């Protein structure tokens, strides 16, 4: 089998992602990001205060205004922060060079944050990066002056950045219970921002089954003078789809989904482990429909990430026009934020490259789909070529040293009596479709015993068994399985048997009728589990009653003895 390599170009390598923490608040967010781990993204801390900078965990640190503030902070003066960063501009430019996407985490209102953030955004844009700014607004009790500083900076950022996500500290109370410590409140806010960063990274880095890229992200946010709505939820276990959506909607930026009702474009991205089911996706999208207006353009993306394990993450990104925002009373505390998106030249090229790159992603699942349907392992096959490889490698190990069993059951599995890796030419049928698989196995027929792996074709794509070519192929391979005396009648039996649509096997004269029956019978379910051919008495011939891997139709008395 040829492992099919995905075209990696459509995705952004994680090395070209940089997360910048600016000022004291930015350093805190960065710390949270570092603690949670970020798939190789680089962290850069910027601060005027040398002491805080030294304590920061980031891999890369740049002290701003070495000569100006002499290692002290900016003292709440944005002008000082502004001058300080100009001093280190070249250093920062060097550090951001070649990055495709830059996240800037900043707490606005203070000196360094408010003063330096617009400059860094400009530098990053000049270097051709897509800049997403996560900004926190100061508390109401911090005073008007600070608020004004923050707002004027925010206006600048809205023009300069590609996307701006603001979090108002006044809303921190929604994240935690009233009696929880202030420490919890801040870390909850940081965690939310960190989750958002990770979700965006996941979105642009992971090659999706249904891909969404930066272009989709752009169009989700492409509303002039808008505020970014952002929600990200992660859930595990039973009912995880609903739970993940609930968590995503619980984001204070979404106000329980109430704000989504005015959205024009909503980007939904799902990322799950290999056990993500279509059903879950359907369920989640159905629930989401309740919150999104019918007219909204829903950009949907899904990706499989084995690292997610049993988890399922949902990311909702949307932008709200400002006039709609004013109507929502709960947002009255929020500043008038403006986000004007004008993708720079360098970025538009990247975005333009996206659609062509997404094409393979769209067509890719197709070869999987027909193979996955009738195969005994729909999940792993559907999960993509990589797991297909694993699955095929595993099965021979299971059955390879178990020839007697293969002989007696006569079900499709024994076809893979040898590992497929040993014979490269036989791997050819794999990417092809069932009918095409037929001519391949025929030449090696005379020395079938030496080339049992020729049958990898029919195995990998089980539809071959149902195609008209299959019965013959099946019959011919049967004799070599050490059944010379019954070879011919057996072959005939099987031919008629598999030609008729009923799954019930003929098994009339075959030497091991019961076993054969057991092997072929549950063709509707995973017949690979029919390893133990113990009699089931009254429940013979019924679909196995399997709970937690135990067949309930067999006596526990016998099962536990084993």
């Amino acid at each position, binding site marked *: 089998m040829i492992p099919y390599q995905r075209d990696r170009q459509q995705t952004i390598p994680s090395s070209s992602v940089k997360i910048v923490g600016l000022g004291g608040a930015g350093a805190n967010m960065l710390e949270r990001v570092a603690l949670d781990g970020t798939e190789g993204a680089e962290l850069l801390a910027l601060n005027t205060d040398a002491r805080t900078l030294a304590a920061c965990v980031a891999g890369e640190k740049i002290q701003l205004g070495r000569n100006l503030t002499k290692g002290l902070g900016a003292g709440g003066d944005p002008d000082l922060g502004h001058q300080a960063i100009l001093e280190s501009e070249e250093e920062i430019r060097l550090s951001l060079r070649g990055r495709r996407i830059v996240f800037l985490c900043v707490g606005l209102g203070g000196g360094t944050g408010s003063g330096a953030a617009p400059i860094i955004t400009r530098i990053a844009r000049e270097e051709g990066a897509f800049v997403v700014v996560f900004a926190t607004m100061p508390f109401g009790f911090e005073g008007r002056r600070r608020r004004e500083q923050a707002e004027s900076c925010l206006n600048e950022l809205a023009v300069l950045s590609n996307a701006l996500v603001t979090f108002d500290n006044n809303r921190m109370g929604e994240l935690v219970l009233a009696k929880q410590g202030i420490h919890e409140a801040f870390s909850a806010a940081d965690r939310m921002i960190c989750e958002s960063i990770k979700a965006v990274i996941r979105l642009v880095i992971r090659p999706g089954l249904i891909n969404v890229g930066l272009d989709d992200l752009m169009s989700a946010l492409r509303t002039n003078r808008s505020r970014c709505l952002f929600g990200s939820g992660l859930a595990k276990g039973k009912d995880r789809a609903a739970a993940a959506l609930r968590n995503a909607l619980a984001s204070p930026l979404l106000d329980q989904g109430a704000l989504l009702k005015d959205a024009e474009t909503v980007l939904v991205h799902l990322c799950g482990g290999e056990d993500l089911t279509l059903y879950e996706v359907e369920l989640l999208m159905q629930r989401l429909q309740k919150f999104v207006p019918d007219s909204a353009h829903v950009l949907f993306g899904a990706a499989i990430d084995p690292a997610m394990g049993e988890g399922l993450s949902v990311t909702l990104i949307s932008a709200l026009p400002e006039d709609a925002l004013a109507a929502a009373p709960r947002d009255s505390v929020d500043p008038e934020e403006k986000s004007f998106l004008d993708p720079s030249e360098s970025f538009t090229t990247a975005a333009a490259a996206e659609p062509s790159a997404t094409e393979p992603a769209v067509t890719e699942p197709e070869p999987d789909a027909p193979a996955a349907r009738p195969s005994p392992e729909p999940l792993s096959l559907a999960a993509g070529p990589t797991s297909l490889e694993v699955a095929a490698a595993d099965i021979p190990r299971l059955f390879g040293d178990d020839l007697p069993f293969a002989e007696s059951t006569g079900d499709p599995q024994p076809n893979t009596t040898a590992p497929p890796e040993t014979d490269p030419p036989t791997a050819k049928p794999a990417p092809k479709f069932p009918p095409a698989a037929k001519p391949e196995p025929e030449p090696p027929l005379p020395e079938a015993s030496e080339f049992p792996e020729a049958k990898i074709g029919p195995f990998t794509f089980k539809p071959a068994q149902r195609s008209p070519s299959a019965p013959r192929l099946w019959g011919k391979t049967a004799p070599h399985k050490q059944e010379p005396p019954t070879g011919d009648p057996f072959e005939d039996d099987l031919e008629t048997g598999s030609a008729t649509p009923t799954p019930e096997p003929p098994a009339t004269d075959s030497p091991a009728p019961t076993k054969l029956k057991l092997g072929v019978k549950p063709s509707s379910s995973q017949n690979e589990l029919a390893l133990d051919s113990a009699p089931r008495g009254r429940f013979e011939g019924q679909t196995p009653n399997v709970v937690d891997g135990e067949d309930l139709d067999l006596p526990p*008395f016998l099962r*536990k003895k084993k």
Partner: protein
Amino acid sequence: MARRTKIHVGLEIGTSKTCFVVGEVKPDTAVRILGIGTTKTAGVRKGEIYDFPQARACLRDALVKAEDASDVEIGSVFLAVTGSHIHGVNNRGTFRLPEGQSIVEADHVEEAKTIARDVHIPADHVHLHPIIRNYLLDGLYQNTSPTGLYGRTVEADFHIVHGIGARIQNSIRLVRETPLEVDDVVFSPIATAQMALNQEQRERGALVIDVGGGTTDYALYIDGSIAASGCIPVGGDHVTNDIHLVTGLPFSTAEKLKIAEGDASADPSRSVGIAKLDDDRGYAEVEVRRSILNEVIRQRLEETLRLVRQRLPEGAVETLGSGVFLTGGTSLMRGFSELAFEIFGRDIYRPEPPDVSGVQTSFKDPRYATAIGLIRYAQILETERPVHDGCISRVLRLFWPFHR
């Protein structure tokens, strides 16, 4: 309001028997059993019908018996269904009041209920019961609808029972062909619980386990409302089958041996010696070591009960104030309550096998618990339903039997 005496009929097409119970509900809500018609079922496995002609013949037979016994012409029945495809799930619907409104209105409660009911079930499944458990207003539990109260978020907890539509429809079709009308379709454990538990026991928390011939159904009540329900496709048939597989005895003998000699408690003193069955002429037909027989039975039932326990929500068993109520034919197995106590560690209530046969005693017989429960269920429906709606909803139900 004055109500007439009404006659309800409960029908359970079980794996081992088909059973009609005709009950009379008096105006003072007292229930009197008029007659029972029961016959051995063929063509049903694990609670699901696999051979229609056979099942139909059994149904007709039971119907005739029931009509004879009760002297009532049966026109419509309440049907109990079960099967491993039926699941009970809990869902909570949350509705945030629109901006500017702070008083909960009936519409808001309805919306929360709609959201709660709208649990996503697989495409081929249909809802059997949406049962309201309780309401929450801003996180505070409310037993009744919070209409008219001040609040911000209304939540409704529902227990939703759903199963594969085609299979349920097939059961209904079987009954319709008889021909009988189906008043309502009820998930078996819910019907059983109506019979087995009273309100106080439900308030304190109780678990009903109906170990039948082909399935084990359970329903868990906590704080007066249902918290979990479901079906495990293992029952008395499996015990017989296990004996058959282990000892090699034919089914009929295995069944006889199970009933006559089986014991599920792990008590070694009951596993001494050899269990014998004599045939008609007095010869020993079967000899099986008790230790093996009892071990086979015990392991099967133990596993079944453990599966039930596994499926209950975490920590639910510990909160059961009333205990565990066992019903169903298999619960008559000797030593079953000891076994159940071992697994659940709560009080175990088990009906004793009736010593005299007859209509009066069948109330106590666990084998009829589900069918009698159906009458209770019908009675409760009757009291909840507005008086005037009679024929219209009946006609409606004709077309949509899941409507209630």
